[in-house]
C-alpha cells in the first residue's frame, strides 16, 4: 500500500528477520542506518546542523532493497498491544523505521481508527528507557547465561513451586506458555489485570449466560450506562466510540440516540452524556431495580418473578437512598419505555463494591425487562481453538498469588506483562511477599517496580518488533456476521532497535527447549513455531484452497485471520431469588468521603506511563498534564476551605497520598477522585515521580462473589497541607474558558435542531 493510499489492497508483510541475515548483511544494522538517514532528512530544516554527524553511516538511496522504496511510506498491518482491546493497526514504515500507527480499516474492532493510547505505541517502541540486555541484579549478562541460570534455578524444583504471573494472554504465546507450564508440571499461571471487567464477566455469565456479550450501542435508541466508561477506558473503547458515532447520528433510522450516564465521578462517557447523574456511590443496583418498578408503573409489563424481587425497591425509597430525584427516576423510566430498543450497561463505577456483582446483575436485569437482550446485547462468537482463546485477567488472581508468596511456597516466579509491585494495595504487602520467592524472573520492556524487585530481568521486544497472535476478548464483528471471530497477528514493523531483546514467544520457546528439546528443536525461533502452527491449521483457518505461500503472505498482509467462531448463545432471563443490595453506608465520621480511583483513558493502570505523548496530552476532564490530582466537588471544597491548587493529603485507613486539589463539578459531593496510573517509583524518565500512586492507599475490601478488589470501597479524609501550587493544565489559570463558551462551544437542545437531513 502506497503512501496515503487508503485503498484496501493488502500490503506485503515485513520479512522475517533471518532472511536479511542470510543475504550477507545484518538487516537490523541496515535498517538502523537507513533509519538514521531518514532522521537526518527530518532534522535538516531550519538551520539544525547535526546532519553531518554520522554521515559515514548513511546508506545511499540508490541502493534500494526489494522491500523498501526510499522516501515512500509503506503500511504494514499488525495488532496493537497498548491495551487488551486488541485493535488492528497498520504502521507506516519508511526507510526501515516505523513512524506512525493508524487503525486498520479492515478491522471490525476499530474500523480504521486508533485512540491516543494506541498511537503512543511507537513511543513504547522507541522509548529511551527500555531494557536492552538481560540483567542479573542490575548487571548486564548474556542470554546464554540468563537462560542457563533459569535452568539451574528450576533444577529440582517441583511444578507447584513455580508460579507464572502474566497480564491477559491469548493467541500462540498463550499456547506456548500453557505448554511450558505443562512441561514444568505447574498449574500456577496467574493472569492479573489491575483494572479488569472481571466482576462484569461474572455477572454477565449469570444473567446472559455469556461472560462477554457483544453490545450494540449503534442499534440502541437510549443507552443507560451505570458507570461504564465505554468511550474512555472500558473493554474496547475504540469499537464503542465508533458505535457511539452511529448512535449519535440523527439520520439513522432510530434517530439520534440519548445517552444517560449514572456514576459518581464524571468519566469521559459521562461528559458526553445528555444527562449525567451522580447517584450516591454504591447505589447503582438499587437504582436499576427502582427503574424496573417505575417502568411497571409506567405501563411496561414486568414478569411476576421480577416484580416480586424488585418490589422493595420503590422509586420513593430508592430516591432517598441514591439521592436521585423521584421525578428523575420516572423521567428515565418514561424515556426507556418510549424509546426501544435501549441498552443498559454496567461498568467499573457500579461494580467496585463488596456487592459489585449484585449491582451488575441488577443492572443486567433491566436489560431483560426492557427486552434488549438479543437486540442490543448479542452473543459473541468464541474462537474455535481453546488453547489460544484469551485468558481474561482479574484482580483476584493477584490475591491468590500473593497468598502463595506469603506462605513462601514459590521457589521460582516469572512475571510478564504485569506490574503488581506498583499496582497492588500497600496493605496487601505484595512487594514484601514477592521478595520471599526464591528466584524472580521478570520479562520486561522497562525497569518498572516489579522488574526492579526481580532477580533476573529479561529484555522484551517492543510490540513493533515481536511476533505474536492475539484473540480479542471482546469480539467485535462486521455488520451482519454474528458468528465472526478473529485471530489478530502481531508482526515486526521493523528490525530490532537493540540486538539483545527478545519476544516473549522466543523466550518461552527457549525455555521450553530446556525441558522438551526434542519436541521443539524443529523451531528455530518463535516465528517458525507460529508459522508452522498456523499452517498446520490452514484449512480450519479458511485457507483450504490456497497455496501455502499465498496463504501465509495474505495472513501477514492483512494481519487478521477471520475464524469461523463458535456460536455463543445468550440466555433468557434467569430465575432470580433476590438481590442483596445494602443500604448506602452512613459516612464514617473520621473518613467521611468516598475515594474513587478513576481510570484515565490513556493512563489506565499505569503501564504506559512512560510514554511522553500520554503524559503531555491533557486529561480530557481536568485538562491536567504531567501530574495526578484530587477531584473535589466545589461545595465540599468550600466546606473544607480547599481552593484549586492546594496540596491536600488524602488519607484512608490503609495509606495516604498527597496531591493537588482540583475543583470539579462532575463529582458527587461525598466523593473525591484520584486518577490511577501515576506515581511510579521507577519505569523511566517520563513516569518516575510524576504524581501519586492511588493503588497504594486502597482498603482491602473485596467483591463478595468474585473476590475482586472493590475499588470504590475506600473511605478517606482530606486535609490541607498548607502548600499551594498553580496546577499545570491546558485550561489556563484564568479559567476564562467558561466565559467565552456561549460564542465558542455552542450547545443546542435536541428539539431545536433538525438532524435527519444531515450529511
Amino acid at each position, binding site marked *: 500500500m502506497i503512501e496515503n493510499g487508503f485503498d484496501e489492497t493488502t500490503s506485503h508483510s515485513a520479512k522475517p528477520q533471518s532472511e536479511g541475515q542470510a543475504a550477507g548483511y545484518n538487516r537490523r544494522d541496515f535498517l538502523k542506518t537507513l533509519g538514521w538517514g531518514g532522521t537526518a532528512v527530518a532534522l535538516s530544516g531550519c538551520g539544525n546542523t547535526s546532519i553531518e554527524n554520522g554521515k559515514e553511516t548513511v546508506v545511499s538511496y540508490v541502493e534500494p532493497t526489494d522491500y523498501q522504496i526510499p522516501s515512500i511510506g509503506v503500511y504494514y498491518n499488525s495488532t496493537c498491544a497498548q491495551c487488551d482491546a486488541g485493535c488492528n493497526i497498520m504502521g507506516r514504515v519508511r526507510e526501515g523505521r516505523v513512524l506512525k500507527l493508524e487503525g486498520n480499516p479492515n478491522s471490525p474492532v476499530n474500523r480504521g481508527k486508533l485512540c491516543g493510547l494506541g498511537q503512543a505505541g511507537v513511543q513504547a517502541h522507541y522509548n529511551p528507557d527500555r531494557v536492552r540486555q538481560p540483567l542479573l541484579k542490575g548487571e548486564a549478562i548474556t542470554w546464554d547465561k540468563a537462560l542457563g541460570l533459569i535452568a539451574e534455578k528450576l533444577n529440582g524444583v517441583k511444578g507447584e513451586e513455580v508460579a507464572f504471573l502474566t497480564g491477559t494472554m491469548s493467541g500462540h504465546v498463550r499456547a506456548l506458555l500453557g505448554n511450558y507450564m505443562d512441561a514444568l508440571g505447574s498449574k500456577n499461571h496467574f493472569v492479573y489485570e489491575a483494572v479488569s471487567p472481571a466482576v462484569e464477566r461474572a455477572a454477565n455469565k449469570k444473567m446472559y449466560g455469556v461472560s462477554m456479550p457483544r453490545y450494540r450501542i449503534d442499534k440502541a435508541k437510549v443507552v443507560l450506562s451505570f458507570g461504564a466508561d465505554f468511550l474512555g477506558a472500558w473493554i474496547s473503547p475504540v469499537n464503542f466510540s465508533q458505535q457511539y458515532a452511529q448512535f449519535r447520528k440523527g439520520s439513522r433510522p432510530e434517530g439520534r440516540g440519548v445517552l444517560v450516564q449514572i456514576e459518581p465521578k464524571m468519566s469521559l462517557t459521562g461528559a458526553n452524556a445528555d444527562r449525567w447523574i451522580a447517584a450516591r456511590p454504591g447505589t447503582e443496583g438499587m437504582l436499576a431495580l427502582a427503574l424496573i418498578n417505575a417502568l411497571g408503573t409506567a405501563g411496561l409489563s414486568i414478569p411476576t418473578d421480577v416484580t416480586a424481587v424488585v418490589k422493595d425497591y420503590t422509586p420513593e425509597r430508592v430516591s432517598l437512598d441514591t439521592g436521585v430525584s423521584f421525578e428523575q427516576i420516572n423521567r428515565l423510566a418514561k424515556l426507556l419505555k418510549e424509546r426501544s430498543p435501549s441498552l443498559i450497561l454496567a461498568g467499573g463505577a457500579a461494580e467496585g463494591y463488596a456487592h459489585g456483582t449484585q449491582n451488575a446483575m441488577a443492572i443486567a436485569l433491566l436489560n431483560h425487562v426492557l427486552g434488549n437482550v438479543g437486540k442490543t446485547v448479542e452473543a459473541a462468537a468464541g474462537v474455535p481453538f481453546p488453547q489460544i482463546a484469551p485468558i481474561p485477567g482479574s484482580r483476584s488472581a493477584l490475591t491468590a498469588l500473593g497468598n502463595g508468596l506469603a506462605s513462601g511456597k514459590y521457589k521460582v516466579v516469572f512475571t510478564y506483562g504485569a506490574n503488581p509491585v506498583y499496582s497492588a494495595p500497600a496493605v496487601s504487602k505484595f512487594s514484601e511477599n514477592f521478595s520471599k520467592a526464591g528466584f524472580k524472573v521478570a520479562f520486561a520492556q522497562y525497569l518498572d517496580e516489579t522488574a526492579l524487585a526481580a532477580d533476573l530481568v529479561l529484555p522484551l521486544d517492543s510490540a513493533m518488533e515481536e511476533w505474536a497472535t492475539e484473540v480479542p476478548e471482546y469480539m467485535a464483528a462486521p455488520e451482519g456476521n454474528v458468528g465472526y471471530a478473529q485471530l489478530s497477528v502481531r508482526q515486526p514493523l521493523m528490525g530490532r532497535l537493540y540486538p539483545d531483546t527478545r519476544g516473549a514467544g522466543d523466550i518461552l520457546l527457549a525455555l521450553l527447549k530446556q525441558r522438551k528439546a526434542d519436541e521443539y528443536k524443529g523451531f528455530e525461533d518463535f516465528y517458525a513455531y507460529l508459522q508452522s502452527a498456523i499452517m498446520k491449521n490452514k484449512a480450519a483457518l479458511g485457507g483450504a484452497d490456497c497455496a501455502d505461500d499465498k496463504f501465509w503472505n495474505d495472513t501477514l498482509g492483512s494481519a487478521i485471520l477471520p475464524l469461523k467462531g463458535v456460536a455463543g448463545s445468550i440466555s433468557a432471563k434467569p430465575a432470580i431469588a433476590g438481590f442483596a443490595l445494602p443500604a448506602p453506608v452512613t459516612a464514617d465520621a473520621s473518613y467521611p468521603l468516598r475515594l474513587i480511583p478513576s481510570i484515565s483513558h490513556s493512563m489506565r493502570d499505569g503501564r504506559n506511563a512512560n510514554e511522553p505523548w500520554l503524559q*503531555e496530552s491533557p486529561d480530557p476532564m481536568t485538562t491536567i498534564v*504531567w501530574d495526578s490530582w484530587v477531584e473535589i466537588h466545589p461545595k465540599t471544597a468550600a466546606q473544607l476551605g480547599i481552593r484549586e491548587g492546594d496540596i491536600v493529603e488524602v488519607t484512608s485507613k490503609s495509606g495516604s497520598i498527597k496531591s493537588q486539589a482540583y475543583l470539579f463539578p462532575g463529582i458527587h459531593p461525598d466523593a473525591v477522585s484520584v486518577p490511577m496510573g501515576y506515581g511510579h517509583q521507577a519505569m523511566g524518565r517520563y513516569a518516575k515521580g510524576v504524581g501519586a500512586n492511588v493503588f497504594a492507599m486502597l482498603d482491602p475490601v473485596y467483591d463478595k462473589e468474585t473476590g475482586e478488589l472493590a475499588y470504590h470501597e475506600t473511605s478517606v479524609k482530606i486535609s490541607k497541607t498548607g502548600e499551594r501550587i498553580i496546577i499545570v493544565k491546558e485550561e489556563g489559570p484564568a479559567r476564562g474558558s467558561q466565559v467565552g463558551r456561549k460564542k465558542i462551544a455552542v450547545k443546542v437542545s435536541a428539539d431545536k435542531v433538525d438532524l435527519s437531513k444531515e450529511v
Partner: protein
Amino acid sequence: MSVSNLLQNWSTFRHEHPINDKPHAEIKWAMTIDLDTCIGCNACSVACYAENNLPVVGKEKYAHGQSMHWIRIERYWGETEVKEEYDPNSNFDMVQQDFQADQGAQFLPMLCQQCEAAPCETVCPVGATNHTEDGLNSQIYNRCIGSRYCSANCPFKVRYFNWWNYPEQENAWPEPLPLQLNPDLTVRTKGVMEKCTFCKQRTYTARNNARSEGRPVHDGDVQTACQQSCPTNAISFGNLVDPEARVAKQWEQQQVDLAKEKQEKDEKADNKLRGYRILEELRPYPSIMYLERVRESAV
C-alpha cells in the same frame, strides 16, 4: 529587479480573500468538526504529535504556556450559570460552584482555522505566512524570523512558537525517539512559528498522486492525521470546491457560506441547522465549520 518588477510581482500575490478574488479553481481544503460526536478523547491530538513532529515540552514548559499542540481539546461546562457580572480577575476562585455538569461537559477541538482572510497573513513582516492556492495559511519555517506578530493578531491563538530549541530539549526526543520523526516534514528549531497545516504533507502527496494518474483529487484520497484517528469520525476534511466531497455537502446542507461573516440562516427564527464558525463576525472567514453540540432536554 526594477521597481516595475516589484510592483508587478506585488499585484500578483495581493489578494482579498475570499471576496473580490478569483474563486478557488481546483481545491479549497476545508473541515467540519461535529461537536456532538466529538468525545474529547485526545486521539487527534496524539495523532498530530506523531504526524507533525511536535515536541513534548515537559511539565515546566507546559506550566509556562509553552506547549506545542497544534490541536488542543478545550473543555467547557454547562452554560446556564455564569453570572453576568463575573469577575474576570479572580484567578482561582471564580464562580466554579456554579458550573453545571448535569448535561456533561463540552469538548471543542481547536486548531488553526485556515482563515480565508487570515489576520496572521497580512501582518507578517517577511511574508512567512501566506495563502496557498488550495486555501491554506502556509507557514514557511525557513522564512520566519520570529516576530510573532501573526500570533498576536490571531483571534484563536492557535499559532505555536518555538520558544526553545525543542529538538535539543531533554523531554522532546532523547535517543532513540528521533527515529520516530516523520521525514516528510522538518523538525522546527528555536525562534520560528508553527501551526496546523491541515497535514500539508498528506494533501500534497494526494495531489501529486492524482496528478500523476491524470485525475482530480477525489474525496477520501486524503485524510488529515486527526481525522484519520478520530474514533467517532467527528472530523471530516476535504475539498470544498468538489460538490461530491462530504465537506462540501455538509457546508451546503448547513447553509454556511465561506465568504460571509454572517450567515443568512442565523437571522431566521426557524433555523434548525447547527453549523457555525467561531468568531466569524471578525471576518477572518475560517475554513472550519463546527456543528453545535446537541443535548436531549427530555431527560
